[in-house]
C-alpha cells in the first residue's frame, strides 16, 4: 500500500525557481516566460504534458484588437469586455488582457501557429458581443490544438524548463506565510514527491468538471481553487459559471468536442429551432442585447432561451433545441465544414437531412483565484493565471477572451514569478510538506462509498441545483448535500493499490471538488439578483446594489467565509 511504501523512504525531492502547476495554454506560456526571464522552471501536470486542460480542446476563436481585418484599438475590446462583464470586471485585469492580447497573438503568429489568413492579413471573425470583427482562429476547428502544439514546440526549444506529467499536486507548501513549493502524488509509482520552489504559479484552469454536462477535460474539477484556498489565498466571483448554449446533445457524438457547432452556426447562419420547428431567439431578445445581426443573443441569454423553451414543453426529444443547417445547399455545408463533414458522417449525422440537438453545457468559469495586476495572490510567492484567475471577465465572458487570457496572464504570471524568485532566496523547509505527506501516508484501503460514484453524484447535484438557473431552495439543498458528501468521504484518504491508484486520485479530487462546489453555491445563495451567468429564478433582474464582487476565503477554523468588495477599477500597465 502507498502508506508503507512512503514511510520506508524519504520522498523524492526536486528544487526549482518557479513551479507551474498545470500545462495548458496558460501554464505553458507561464513556463516559457519564466524561463525567458532566467528562472529554472518545473512545469507539472496531473495529465500528460500538453494533453489535459482546456486549451487543447478549444475549437473556437481568439479575440484581440489586431486591427488586421478592420481598424481597431484595444480600448474598444476593453469596452466590449467590460460591457459583457455586467459591471463586475476587475478593470485592471481586463485592460491587461485587451492591451497585451495583440502582442501575444503576434508572438504566436511568429511561432507559426497558423492563424487563418485572407488577402495577406490575419482573418478576424465577428463574434457575439464584439463591436467589430476581432476574433482570429485556425481552421477547421483547430484553434486550441494549434495553440497547444505551438507552445509545446516552444517548450521543446527552450532550456531550463523541466516538464513532469502524471503529477497530482496535493497541497502547496508554506514557509513563514509564503509559498515555498508543493507536495505531489506521482501517479505511476504511487509515491509522494516534494517540490521546492521560490514561486508557485497556479495554472490549473476552471471548474466546469464539477458539472454533469461539460466541455472540459476530466482534470478541470477546480483543484487549483482548493489549493489556493487552503494556503490562505482568496477566490472571487465564484458564482459565475458560463454555460455554452449550444453544446452537442444528440445523437451521441464521439471523437469530437461537444462545443463544436458555434463557428459553423456563425459562418452559415445555422438556425436554432424549438420542437415546433420555429426560431425562438427573437422572443428573448431585449433592447440592450448586443447583436451582430447574425447572432441574436449573447451566451447567457441564449442559455436562458433554450432552457425556457424546454421548460415550456417546446424542447427537442433529448431535452434541448434543434440546430438546423437544412436551409443550406449541400455544397455550402461541405465547403464550410471541410473534413468535419466526414467526422460527422462517421457519427451518422447528415446535416442536409436532419438537424442535431443542442443544449447548454458548462463551458467556462468567470470566477477564480483573486490576484492583483501582477497576477499575484494574497500569499507571497503564489501566482495564478489563465482560467484559474477570477475577475477579468466579471459576470459573463466575451466569446474569444479565454485563450487570450491564457496567453496574456500566463506570460505575465510567469514573468512576475521569475522576478519574485530572483529577489527571494530559497525558503524551503521540510516540515512545510509534512501535512500533505501525512495525509497521503494516512490513506487506508477502502472503496465504500465508491468515490467515483460520489463524484458522479456531485456533478449531477451541481447541474441540477447550482446550474444556470438557481433558487434559494435549490442552493440550500445543494449546500446540505455537499456537507453530507464531505462527511461521507471523511478526512482519511481512500486507496486501492500503489501504482496509478484511481481510488486515491478520486478521493483527493473529491477533497478539492467539495470545497470548490461549496465556494460556488455559497456566493450564489447570497447574491439575490440575476446578473450575467448567475440567474436567480426567485430574484429576476439586475439589482444595482449588487454591483459588487463576492470574495471567498477559508477561515482559521477551516470554514468558508464570504465577504464583499467593490470591483477594482483603474488600469494596469501591460
Amino acid at each position, binding site marked *: 500500500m502507498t502508506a508503507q511504501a512512503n514511510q520506508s523512504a524519504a520522498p523524492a525531492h526536486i528544487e526549482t525557481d518557479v513551479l507551474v502547476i498545470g500545462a495548458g495554454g496558460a501554464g505553458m506560456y507561464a513556463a516559457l516566460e519564466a524561463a525567458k526571464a532566467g528562472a529554472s522552471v518545473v512545469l507539472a501536470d496531473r495529465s500528460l504534458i500538453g494533453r489535459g486542460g482546456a486549451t487543447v480542446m478549444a475549437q473556437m476563436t481568439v479575440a484581440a484588437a489586431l486591427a488586421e481585418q478592420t481598424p481597431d484599438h484595444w480600448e474598444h475590446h476593453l469596452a466590449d469586455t467590460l460591457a459583457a462583464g455586467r459591471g463586475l470586471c476587475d478593470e485592471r485585469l481586463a485592460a491587461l488582457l485587451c492591451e497585451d492580447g495583440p502582442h501575444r497573438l503576434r508572438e504566436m503568429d511568429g511561432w507559426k501557429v497558423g492563424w487563418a489568413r485572407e488577402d495577406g492579413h490575419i482573418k478576424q471573425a465577428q463574434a457575439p458581443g464584439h463591436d467589430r470583427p476581432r476574433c482570429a482562429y485556425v481552421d477547421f476547428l483547430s484553434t486550441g490544438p494549434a495553440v497547444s502544439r505551438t507552445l509545446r514546440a516552444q517548450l521543446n526549444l527552450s532550456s531550463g524548463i523541466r516538464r513532469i506529467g502524471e503529477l497530482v499536486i496535493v497541497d502547496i507548501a508554506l514557509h513563514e506565510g509564503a509559498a515555498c513549493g508543493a507536495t505531489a502524488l506521482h501517479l505511476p509509482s504511487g509515491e509522494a514527491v516534494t517540490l521546492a520552489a521560490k514561486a508557485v504559479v497556479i495554472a490549473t484552469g476552471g471548474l466546469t468538471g464539477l458539472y454533469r454536462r461539460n466541455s472540459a477535460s476530466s482534470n478541470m474539477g477546480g483543484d487549483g481553487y482548493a489549493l489556493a484556498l487552503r494556503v490562505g489565498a482568496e477566490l472571487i466571483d465564484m458564482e459565475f459559471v458560463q454555460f455554452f448554449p449550444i453544446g452537442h446533445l444528440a445523437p451521441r457524438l464521439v*471523437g469530437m468536442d461537444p462545443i463544436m457547432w458555434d463557428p459553423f452556426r456563425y459562418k452559415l447562419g445555422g438556425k436554432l429551432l424549438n420542437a415546433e420547428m420555429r426560431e425562438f431567439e427573437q422572443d428573448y431578445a431585449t433592447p440592450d442585447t448586443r447583436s451582430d445581426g447574425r447572432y441574436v443573443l449573447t451566451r447567457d441569454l441564449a442559455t436562458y432561451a433554450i432552457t425556457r423553451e424546454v421548460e415550456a414543453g417546446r424542447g427537442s426529444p433529448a431535452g434541448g433545441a434543434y440546430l438546423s443547417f437544412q436551409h443550406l445547399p449541400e455544397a455550402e455545408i461541405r465547403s464550410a465544414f471541410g473534413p468535419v463533414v466526414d467526422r460527422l458522417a462517421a457519427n451518422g449525422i447528415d446535416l442536409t437531412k436532419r438537424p442535431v440537438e443542442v443544449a447548454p453545457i458548462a463551458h467556462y468559469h468567470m470566477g477564480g483565484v483573486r490576484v492583483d495586476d501582477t497576477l499575484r495572490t494574497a500569499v507571497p510567492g503564489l501566482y495564478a493565471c489563465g482560467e484559474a484567475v477570477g475577475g477579468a471577465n466579471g459576470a459573463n465572458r466575451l466569446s474569444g477572451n479565454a485563450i487570450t487570457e491564457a496567453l496574456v496572464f500566463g506570460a505575465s504570471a510567469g514573468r512576475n514569478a521569475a522576478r519574485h524568485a530572483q529577489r527571494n532566496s530559497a525558503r524551503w523547509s521540510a516540515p512545510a510538506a509534512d501535512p500533505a505527506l501525512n495525509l497521503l501516508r494516512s490513506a487506508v484501503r477502502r472503496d465504500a462509498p465508491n468515490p467515483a460514484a460520489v463524484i458522479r453524484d456531485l456533478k449531477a447535484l451541481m447541474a441540477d441545483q447550482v446550474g444556470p438557473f438557481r433558487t434559494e431552495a435549490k442552493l440550500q439543498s445543494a449546500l446540505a448535500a455537499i456537507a453530507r458528501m464531505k462527511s461521507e468521504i471523511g478526512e482519511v484518504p481512500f486507496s486501492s493499490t500503489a501504482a496509478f491508484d484511481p481510488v486515491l486520485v478520486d478521493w483527493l479530487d473529491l477533497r478539492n471538488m467539495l470545497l470548490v462546489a461549496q465556494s460556488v453555491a455559497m456566493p450564489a445563495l447570497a447574491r439575490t439578483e440575476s446578473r450575467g451567468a448567475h440567474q436567480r429564478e426567485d430574484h429576476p433582474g439586475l439589482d444595482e446594489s449588487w454591483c459588487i464582487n463576492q470574495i471567498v476565503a477559508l477561515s482559521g477554523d477551516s470554514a468558508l467565509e464570504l465577504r464583499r468588495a467593490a470591483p477594482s477599477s483603474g488600469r494596469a500597465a501591460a
Partner: protein
Amino acid sequence: MKATLAIQRGVPGEVPRVDNFEVAFEPGQSVLDGLRALRCEADPSLAFRFSCINANACKECMMLIDGKVDYACTVRLKEGVTVLGPLPKKALVRDLVTEIAPPDERLLPRR
C-alpha cells in the same frame, strides 16, 4: 442493451487476470463511457487513462480493443464481448494503463 467488457487487470510481475464486467449502454456510447460507468457501478480501482472524455483531443485512452490498438473514446460499445487490454508495446503500469509519456516528461527515468 448490455455489453460485456473482458478487461485485462494487474501490475507488472503479476500473472495478468481477466475480469468480466457487464455494462448497460445506449447505442452510440463509447467504450470509454462503459469504462467510466464501471468505475462508478462495479470497481472504482479499475485503472485506465483518459483526459478529454469525448473530443479525441488528448489521445490518452489508447488501448488494445478486440486485439486492435484504438481509442476507447471513439470505439462504440456493442452487444456481446469486447476484449480490452493494455498497449502491447508499452511498459505496463496497471490494468489498462501503460507508460506512454515521452521519457523526458517523466519524473523517473525509464523503468
